[in-house]
């Protein structure tokens, strides 16, 4: 028996789909399904994280609603996927953050931003918030900034790794050696290119049965924008500590070369994804997931936007407040990473690795706790 109604529905659908198999050429979910005849909770969590929600199987299905079989794979797997984020979150006491995730993220971010503004004001004369010195570190000494963000990043990594370990073990990754170099390489390629977000080759579906969606493009902008911004911060820290070369950096220095395109990607990408979210065919979406998705996109957007603003406004009296907002947003982003949409990337990567391993071994993984 399954733990939730979503899992029960997912099992029903996989039984229907396994009897049909018309969609087997569209993505990884259906070939993975075909290796099984029964579906444990862990199997369904694996399959749900393998699904990229391209929507092709919904518009191609002869049994999707209003048909009485009511086959809606994108929606059901989205529900199971969201539940799985909660179930694998570490430590368990923070799992309820997923219940009203949009609200939780908003509150944490607001508190974080307020703390930075307040902290700057209390630490110094409040007037420091409105000077136009252009000097970040007069507001917050570099060592403190590095220590604070280093600590929150380390916590995020710890929580993410712990959650991922539970997922990895439960789906039975070890039983087919999903951690081998070749499968990880394959999963890396599939994830980096979003191979399965292409509707089986024509582009994915959003509003209707026409594959007009650009989500893959916007996702690339968001993801690679994020990576570039991360690279900008990392190179800046490196220059500061190892080459004794503190900010600000010129337009042709690495932190700027990474940061500016990264910031632009982090603005355009999330805007495109948000637009897609609002126009998506309602039948295909999990309404309960809306808050989590939009909160994460908003965080990405705010990170990019405030970062770019900071660059433009650094020599104006608005610098202090902008810096506090930017740091507050980034701090909240790191703090909430293990408890929001960010985790989808990790679990999807894990699912892709297991898929690559299963295809290589030509057999299903044996989930832990279920008979093998």
């Amino acid at each position, binding site marked *: 028996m399954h733990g939730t109604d979503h899992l029960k529905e997912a099992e029903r659908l996989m039984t229907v789909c396994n*009897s049909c198999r018309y969609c087997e050429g569209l993505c990884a979910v259906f070939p993975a399904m075909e290796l099984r005849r029964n579906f444990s909770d862990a199997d369904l969590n694996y399959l749900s994280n393998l699904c990229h929600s391209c929507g092709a199987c919904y518009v191609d299905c002869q049994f999707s609603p209003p048909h009485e079989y009511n086959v809606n794979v994108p929606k059901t797997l989205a529900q199971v996927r969201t539940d799985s984020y909660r179930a694998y979150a570490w430590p368990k006491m923070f799992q309820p953050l997923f219940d009203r995730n949009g609200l939780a993220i908003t509150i944490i971010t607001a508190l974080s931003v307020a703390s930075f503004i307040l902290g700057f004001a209390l630490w110094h004369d409040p007037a420091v918030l409105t000077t136009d010195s252009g000097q970040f570190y007069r507001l917050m000494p570099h060592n403190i900034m590095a220590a604070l963000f280093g600590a929150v990043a380390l916590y995020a990594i710890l929580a993410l790794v712990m959650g991922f370990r539970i997922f990895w073990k439960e789906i039975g990754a070890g039983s087919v050696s999903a951690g081998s170099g070749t499968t990880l390489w394959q999963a890396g390629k599939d994830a980096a290119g979003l191979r399965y977000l292409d509707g089986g*080759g024509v582009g994915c579906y959003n509003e209707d049965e*026409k594959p007009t969606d650009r989500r893959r493009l916007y996702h690339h902008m968001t993801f690679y924008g994020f990576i570039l911004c991360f690279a900008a911060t990392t190179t800046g820290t490196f220059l500061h500590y190892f080459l004794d070369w503190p900010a600000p950096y010129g337009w042709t220095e690495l932190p700027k070369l990474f940061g500016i395109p990264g910031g632009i990607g982090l603005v355009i990408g999330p805007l495109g994804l948000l637009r897609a979210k609002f126009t998506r065919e309602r039948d295909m979406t999990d309404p309960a997931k809306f808050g989590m998705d939009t909160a994460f996109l908003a965080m990405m957007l705010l990170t990019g936007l405030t970062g770019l603003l900071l660059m433009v406004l650094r020599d104006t009296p608005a610098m202090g407040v902008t810096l506090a907002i930017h740091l507050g947003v980034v701090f909240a982003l790191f703090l909430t990473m293990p408890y929001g949409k960010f985790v989808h990337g990790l679990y999807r990567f894990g699912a892709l690795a297991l898929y690559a391993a299963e295809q290589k071994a030509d057999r299903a993984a044996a989930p832990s706790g279920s008979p093998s």
Partner: protein
Amino acid sequence: MQVPPESVDVLVIGGGNAALCAAIAARRRGASVLVVEGAPKFYRGGNTRHTRNMRCAHDTANDHLTGPYTEDEFWDDLYRVTEGNTDEGLARYMISCSKEMLSWITQQGVRFQPSFGGTLSLGRTNSFFLGGGRAMLNALYRTAEKLGVDILYDAPVVDLEIGGGTFRAATVRMNGASHAIKAQAVVAAAGGFEANIEWLKEGWGEAADNFLIRGSPYNRGDVLKMLLEKGVEAIGDPTQCHAVAIDARAPKFDGGIITRLDCVVFGIVVNKSAERFYDEGEDFWPKRYAIWGRLVAAQPDQIAHIIFDAKSLEMFMPSLFPPIRADSIAELAQKLEIPVEALGKTISEFNAAVRPGTFNHLELDDCRTEGLAPKKSHWARRIDEAPFYAYPVRPGITFTYLGTRVDRDARIQMKSGAGAENMFAAGEIMAGNVLGKGYAAGIGMTIGSVFGRIAGERAASHARD
């Protein structure tokens, strides 16, 4: 609210593969085209929604076909499955046109994939639609719309104005109002009548009440009936339909592929009196599945039960409903509501008649019964390992054979012996011309695409002359 135009060059009646191929071909020839589909948008396309592949002749392997399939081999297959109930000239013409169809249909946006696991036996001959029949339909609709073909849904044709061999107008019912649409030429591509139980009763009697219709509930044959009443010559046996044994728990209409059962060869099949009635192991399942609908239709109340044991449970493709399960034969009989003693007797007689052999479901093995009537020729294994399982089955109707006679131009032939001036037909409505009996996987789509394209081109030529 959409209102149909008063007149159009080419009117296409129907919304499946044949209709869309006709509409696209006619539009590409410069005609204005209106498609009237009787079903709502979701159910558009009749039984094309439930299809998965098409059979086309080809000279070489390609990215989705594993080897060549010559025109002669295609003809041999068609001749064999129809037992000669085909028009050789027309069939060979269709087969030669099918070669070009693979590239033509790809140009209309349809995509193929290599065949996978369960369908490897068709990997050389049949091209599989990526995403299945509805994906194929969606691609055709996208192309048609892009080309400027007008499409109306929920728009059944309720009357045809035909004088001699000339079509003048069709009356379409939309939102409770009737609209007359004149056209220079018409393509009838509205399917067969398998969803019309009353019509099926003309051939099958009251038994048809117990039939399940595997596909679209909208294939009621109204357009076919109108044409036949207005002087069009019929072809094909009016009493025959393609029937397979499907899960009796399937919905009355549109249950589709997932209610099929591939386990007859692994067990025995009994009727409501718990008696066997046919050799379950006569030949490989792909060669025999199409006779079982008819066999079950001939049993009392048109019901039968496939019975097997734990040994066979995972030897066949899963299907929608789980099998009925019991720890003893008696319990199974109770659950199936068939006579307990009779089932016990049937199974013990069967078990006693099973000869030792080496079971191999991939070949015509030597596991058979001796001294039993009816015998089981292959794959006979004792049913003795609990738990025991059963699937109840009923006849599931796929399509009907009666249609309109056509020539190579897909031109409808009149009872008078002359060809119609401006009426063409494509798809299931004329499939009986080449497929008078039996079936070969994917051939319905070949008939639809090839004659759809021809019908559209001829209709456009006529309209623009």
